[in-house]
């Protein structure tokens, strides 16, 4: 047999830039806003603040990344945060006389349970009846939002265990290391590690990628396509339950109005992070960077006292710019 000598592709600087394009964009952005704000952006207290601000939506974005990599979409996440938050709050109010750990655990289970139930239902409808996930989760979004108001009669639930506030506003080891690591940020880091390993290093993650990359090929290779899809919606729903409880803890109330527009912010973070809406391509690290880009922007626009309405315009333009840059750099890298 002939042995073919294949030259190795030279790794030029350009290729490296293309490979790490999103971190490069983030770094440039950070340098830019640091200069523009005369360094007040880079103050430790502000950086901790940015991390805390993005933590809720970024956590959901990790689940959303899985959904989008399978080629799906979940529009119900914002409403689910509201519904699961209210559900958790109601359960906690009902169990106020038990020890705080029990009470909060009960709330968490209620929130996750409701979220996972909604996610699973959406997943079943998507897989069994072949209805586009856009429509199914759009319906779920309306239904969940409606129920969020119905179960609490439209009134936020205030009577919550006092210790809950630690989850929303506390810091890890505050007495030892100071106000460095907010609890939600710790959860964000744990979530990042868990979902990163799940997508890149487990059989389940490989199935997610395969289904989104070529569903028919995946089916013919023996991948349980339906089960895989169902699972990603279930996981994302459950994740909404966790965030719903964190939201309760932050506000010390179960409020049916929270989470408006979150679905779009979350999808924006995923897409800015380089995940393809057509499925099959995406990483959790990219999503974290996408969430950071949006978070840094929001924060610096505030620091720069940009008017609220203009903030939206700038954010929209930046998302567009990031997508254009991503596409241009990827084309360069292919040449």
């Amino acid at each position, binding site marked *: *047999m*002939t042995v*073919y000598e*294949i*030259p*190795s*592709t*030279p790794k030029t600087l350009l290729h490296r830039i293309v490979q790490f394009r999103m971190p490069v964009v983030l770094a440039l952005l950070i340098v830019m806003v640091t200069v523009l704000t005369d360094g007040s952006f880079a103050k430790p207290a502000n950086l901790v603040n940015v991390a805390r601000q993005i933590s809720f939506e970024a956590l959901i974005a990790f689940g959303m990344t899985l959904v989008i990599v399978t080629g799906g979409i979940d529009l119900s996440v914002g409403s689910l945060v509201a519904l699961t938050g209210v559900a958790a709050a109601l359960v906690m109010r009902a169990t106020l006389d038990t020890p705080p750990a029990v009470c909060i655990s009960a709330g968490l289970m209620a929130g996750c349970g409701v979220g996972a139930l909604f996610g699973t239902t959406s997943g079943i409808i998507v897989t069994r009846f072949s209805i586009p996930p856009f429509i199914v989760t759009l319906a779920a979004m309306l239904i969940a939002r409606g129920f969020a108001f119905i179960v609490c009669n439209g009134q936020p639930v205030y009577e919550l265990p006092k210790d809950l506030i630690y989850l929303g506003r506390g810091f890890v080891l505050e007495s030892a290391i100071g106000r460095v690591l907010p609890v939600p940020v710790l959860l964000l880091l744990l979530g990042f590690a868990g979902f990163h*390993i799940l997508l890149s*290093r*487990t*059989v*389940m*993650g*490989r*199935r997610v*990628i*395969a289904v989104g*990359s*070529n569903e*028919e*090929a*995946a*089916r*013919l*290779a*023996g*991948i*349980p396509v339906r089960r895989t899809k169902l699972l990603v919606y279930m996981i994302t729903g459950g994740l909404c339950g966790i965030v719903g409880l964190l939201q309760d803890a932050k506000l010390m109330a179960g409020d049916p109005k929270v989470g408006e527009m979150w679905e779009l912010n979350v999808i924006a973070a995923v897409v800015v992070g380089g995940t393809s809406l057509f499925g*099959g*391509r995406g990483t959790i690290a990219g999503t974290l960077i996408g969430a950071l880009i949006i978070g840094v922007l929001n924060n610096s626009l505030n620091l720069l006292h940009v008017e609220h309405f203009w903030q939206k315009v700038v954010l929209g333009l930046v998302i567009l710019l990031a997508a254009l840059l991503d596409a241009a750099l990827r084309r360069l890298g292919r*040449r």
Partner: protein
Amino acid sequence: MTAAPLRLQCSGMCKSYPGVLALDGVNLDLAAGTVHALVGENGAGKSTLVKLLSGAAPPDAGSVEIDGENVSIRNARHAQQLGIAVVYQEFNLAPDLSVSENIFLGRWPSAPRRPWIDFPKLHDQTAALLATLGIRLSVRQPVSTLSVAQQQMVEIAKALSLDAKILILDEPSAVLTPHELDTLFELVKDLKNRGVGVIYISHRLDEIFRIADDVTVLRDGRNVSTRTIQTVERDRLITEMVGRELKNEFPPRCCTIGDVLLRFENLTARNRFNDVTLDVRAGEVLALTGLVGSGRTSVAQTAFGAVRADEGTVSLAGRHRRFTTPRQAIAEGVAMLPEDRRREGLLLERSIRENITLADPGASATWGFLSHRRERNLTRRLMNDLQIKALSPDTQVATLSGGNQQKVLLARWMARSHRAMILDEPTRGVDVGAKYEIYTLINRLAAEGVALLLISSELPEVIGMADRIGVMHEGRLMDILDNPARATTQEQIMRLAAGEIDTR
């Protein structure tokens, strides 16, 4: 060479991609009114040359003359204006638009300064064009309702609607039945008579000897030879293409045939096939052939859980099995190499490693956690074993040649052993050298005692590889021919496939 004036003269064409020199000074002369076959293994540079001529990519060096005039092709539109038309293997048709809308796509006639299409004029123009080409099609019919062969005719008509002087056909026969191929050849002959120069790319040597006037062999991006067809010998051509001596197109197989492993009994799936009974033994290659649409793929797929039978039974090693998903079939040791590797087989954007481990990712995992190192080792071993030519286990599958892609799919199933394997058109779009390697792999699987069901439209392949040949016609298994000496004739098979005789 032919005495006619040169339509196209390419000289010194060069093109490189990162890490690959795809074309290295290739010359090609195409005379008016002739068919010039372009042959070579996958990756020899044929597609790259087509890309340069169609304006899809600029050459690094070299000159192109059309009718004696030096041109530099700027883009696809410019190539069309210069009279170069390309019909690709994969069609670019809008399925919901009609035949005429497709043929004049983007150039629909309209009254001056009016936004709407002048449909009567469009249909008249189309009808006139089809009449001159001798193609009989209804101009108002949506393209999605046409057969593959008819869609190809639409593509050709579309290519020629711009008054093309040079027509490039890139593997046109891959999707055609023998009868449809005859129609295509008549059309090509007609075009020849009208002075069109045709570049014909194909892996099937039989066709080239039927239709071509000249043959150019490319290998590793360079010219190997150009000769008129009368002076070419078949074996010589193969040797030139692969750059080494291939003693035989089909490697010999010597192994003992064992017990029945896979058995279909009175199997029926409504609207697909009727009352099929056959068995495949361990170590045996049973070919299932027939025209496209005769139900051969559906029969095989019932054993893989991809098609459900209404009546009858499938048994595996003597036990009745009714698989409802491929997953169940795979768990019981049945594997399938699908017909359309890009659509049904590969994750094109992903790596060789991810593609090979797809059917059994758990093999390189502990408690559900994958070890990339174990995956790479497994992939390297199989790449070595199956002679998959690629940079590394992490190379994207889309960048590989057709033959190597097919070997990646085979490797997926060879990562562990199976009891029965269905191979649906395993050598479609694969070059001669890789074909031989795939045949060798099939023989190796047979020697390991796998029951092999080979579905193929290529009769030489069927005769050269199968121990027995089942021929299907319109959902019925007409007969199973014994083929121990590889001596069945193509005519015998064709007559059964056409439904002419029924020996059952």
